[in-house]
């Protein structure tokens, strides 16, 4: 263990200013959608306060993935046409792009690769949720997919200094890459991601999805299904090479997740086989 590195990471996560920021509107909107009495108008007002993001949101509303055909020219129309949950996800995409759409050098990801990976995991996670009759939470699966690896943006710098050691720890101790991150640096990208989400004031379910996406077996029972969805979507995208970095496939495909969702071998292969479609939808969104 590198105590020096562990201390530096510790000082970053205890000093909120050093963690990445996103526009406040995202945290507010994401918490709003849980309110059963939420009016379209109050959501539209909230979003419209941030003019910069509004332009971006309208562009995404009219992208091939979200568009319902008719051109959307205002946030009001977006909410009416696409619905509250869909617009919430669009807000999250617009708000997190700057933080996620950059090169993550320690993990050997070129600019855009982590961003594409997150969107692809989001789209596949939503597909899995729908296939497993979880329509009511398909939007949460999508949000979790976008941000699941946000911790990598903070940890990358330290991973580039310790990569060889992490990889040799994987091999000598037969542990997954993220477990080796913890061995070598004291923290893994899941824990850091959870801290980032706490700063953004994202809800517990999303924090759990980020915190346990490689370790569903450790997730609190109440969030196990959601964690499992993002876990499987992530593994399948990595197997398809989408956003695969220096950590490669040194991860686990968890049986706990497969069982929690009741995914059969056939379904798993079908989701994997859907990757070209998922990737096409991802590119339509970029």
């Amino acid at each position, binding site marked *: 263990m590198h105590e020096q590195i562990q201390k530096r990471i510790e000082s970053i996560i205890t000093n909120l200013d050093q963690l990445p920021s996103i526009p406040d509107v995202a945290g507010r909107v994401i918490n709003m959608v849980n309110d059963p009495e939420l009016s379209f108008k109050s959501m539209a007002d909230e979003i419209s306060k941030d003019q910069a993001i509004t332009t971006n949101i309208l562009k995404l509303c009219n992208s091939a993935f979200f568009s319902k055909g008719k051109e959307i020219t205002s946030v009001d129309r977006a909410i009416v046409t696409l619905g509250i949950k869909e617009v919430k996800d669009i807000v999250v995409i617009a708000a997190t792009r700057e933080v996620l759409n950059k090169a993550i050098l320690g993990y050997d990801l070129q600019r855009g690769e982590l961003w594409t990976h997150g969107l692809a995991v989001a789209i596949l996670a939503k597909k899995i949720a729908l296939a497993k009759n979880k329509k009511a939470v398909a939007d949460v699966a999508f949000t979790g997919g976008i941000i699941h690896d946000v911790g990598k943006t903070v940890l990358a710098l330290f991973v580039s200094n310790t990569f060889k050691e992490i990889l040799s720890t994987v091999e000598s101790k037969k542990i997954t890459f993220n477990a080796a991150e913890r061995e070598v640096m004291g923290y893994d990208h899941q824990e850091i991601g959870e801290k980032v989400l706490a700063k953004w004031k994202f809800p517990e379910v999303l924090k759990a999805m980020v915190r346990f996406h490689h370790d569903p077996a450790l997730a609190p029972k109440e969030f196990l299904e959601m964690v499992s969805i993002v876990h499987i979507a992530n593994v399948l995208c990595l*197997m398809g090479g989408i956003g695969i970095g220096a950590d490669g496939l040194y991860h686990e495909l968890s049986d706990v997740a497969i069982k929690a969702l009741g995914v059969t071998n056939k379904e798993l292969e079908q989701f994997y086989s859907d990757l070209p479609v998922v990737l096409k939808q991802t590119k339509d969104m970029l």
Partner: protein
Amino acid sequence: MNSLVNVGVSQVGFAAQPSVLRTILGSCVGICVYDRMKKTGSLAHILLPNNPGDGNPEKYADTAVPLMVQRLIKEGCKKEFMSAKLAGGAAMFKFNSNVALGQIGDRNVEEARKMLEKHGIPVVAEDIGGNAGRVIDFFLEDGRLKVKAGGEEKLYYKV
């Protein structure tokens, strides 16, 4: 012009010297076929071994190989000058052996080998298996293959 062509998941790329065909692989397999006389080749990024008949020949090893060979012959290449290299087919580090998809990398490699053999194209180099992702660059000027995995680079020159 040494142009770089990115080949996406379940796509087949074709190019001649001095171009470079690139793809990024997990459990998928990159099948590189090269005609050393014409200095022309093809790179398939296949996702699965066998085509169930879904109209996506480029996605599967068993239909991508004949497609590559046909197209190369159309470009004036000859089977007798062709050779192949394989890369990819990695597996998750940990998975339950009951999960069939866990073996998909190996199955992809096997099917690719089988199809190449069927077409009489020798496989002259392989960089397969393990748990690392791979970025591969296939240089049409001499058919060499560069494989970047786990922070290290390897070169395969044999054609």
